[in-house]
């Protein structure tokens, strides 16, 4: 299992691995918003939590189809499925590797981009906390979507259609915590809801994804 994780991390870091792709996309997307909306700092700080969260979500989506598609194309997935590694564990490790290479950099970069959007000072802590709690859910839900579409040629668009609606709860609660944090309200309820979604996704979706892969390998 650790070897799988290490392999995926090494592959992501080597040429063509796509590390930094999501981060770069996030950076550009968030930078574009002030150009489109205008430099009015009050308006920007009002939409900042939502923009940062939508940006993180789309950046995550960008690299999802690589999770299983590359292994499927070169035959590794067949071989891994016959290897003494539970497919559920494989899914979990791949989702974890996706989070480390995509989600974690977003968590680190988001506060810096918050400055661009005049994010309220009190909200920074909550931005980091919600991204830290929420992005693993994005990776695990995404791994499930990638598993469903793994056998399809150019299934990336279909996967986006399947995955984005599943991201809605994480988005709502994540942005809500940051908004409430900025206004000094109590954040516990949305924070707990978001934590629950992440915990549920991490616990259940590897099983669903493994079942989907078994069907597509037939």
């Amino acid at each position: 299992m650790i070897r799988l994780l290490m392999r995926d991390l090494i592959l992501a870091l080597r040429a063509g691995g796509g590390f930094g792709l999501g981060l770069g996309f996030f950076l550009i997307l968030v930078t574009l918003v002030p150009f489109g909306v205008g430099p009015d700092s009050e308006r920007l700080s009002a939409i900042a939590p939502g923009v940062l969260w939508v940006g993180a979500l789309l950046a995550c989506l960008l690299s999802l189809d690589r999770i299983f598609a590359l292994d499927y194309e070169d035959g590794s997935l067949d071989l891994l499925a016959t290897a003494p590694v539970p497919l559920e564990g494989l899914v979990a490790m791949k989702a974890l590797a996706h989070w480390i290479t995509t989600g974690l950099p977003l968590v680190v970069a988001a506060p810096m981009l918050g400055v661009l959007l005049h994010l309220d000072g009190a909200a920074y802590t909550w931005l980091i906390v919600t991204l830290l709690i929420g992005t693993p859910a994005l990776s695990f839900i995404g791994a499930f979507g990638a598993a469903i579409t793994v056998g399809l040629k150019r299934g990336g668009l279909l996967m986006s259609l399947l995955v984005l609606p599943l991201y809605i709860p994480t988005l709502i609660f994540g942005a809500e915590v940051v908004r409430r944090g900025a206004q000094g309200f109590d954040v516990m309820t949305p924070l707990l809801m978001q934590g629950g979604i992440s915990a549920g996704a991490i616990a259940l979706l590897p099983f669903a994804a493994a079942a989907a892969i078994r069907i597509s390998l037939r």
Partner: protein
Amino acid sequence: MSILSVTNLSIARGGIPVLEGLNFAVGTGEVLVLRGPNGAGKTTLLRTLAGLQPPLSGTVTCADDAVAYAAHADGLKSTLTAAENLKFWAGVYGGGDIEPALKAFDLAALADRLAGNLSAGQKRRLGLARLLVTGRPVWILDEPTVSLDAASVALFAAAVANHIAQGGALIVATHIDLGFDAQVLDVAPFRADPQVMSGAFDEAFL
């Protein structure tokens, strides 16, 4: 003693039955060669034996963790070196040393090359070397000698002979003669009636 046996097996591909009524057993130190024209169902049979797809009916009896499968695709990562690829698989299967496998397929000089820079034949040799690090007794191979030259085929034959001598077994779909005493199973007579549709729902859904 048989390691892998099959009773009254029927298999389907894409929801259409391809073979039915298969019965055979493979024991330690035995080689089973599958023959048949293109599209006869050799690959589907091998995938079923490897556990990648469920049989339509009948049973495949095999000990747990006995099978190592190698298909048309070698499952190599082009941005890892040959040695890294092999080490990964050795780690997954809980084996350790990759040196004997590299030596058996004459890959020692290529160990530090990126797999993406290897030729088709070299990739194939690396893919076959993976079998040695799995430590599994039953090898299920689908056209293992594709893109290998005569010298490499000889290396492969030597590796198989060694594996058989150590009590392993081999089920292989191939069109060339590897020079072993082997049971030959021609799958053509077991062709199923393709009119009987089943499992079509899966395909339509996906």
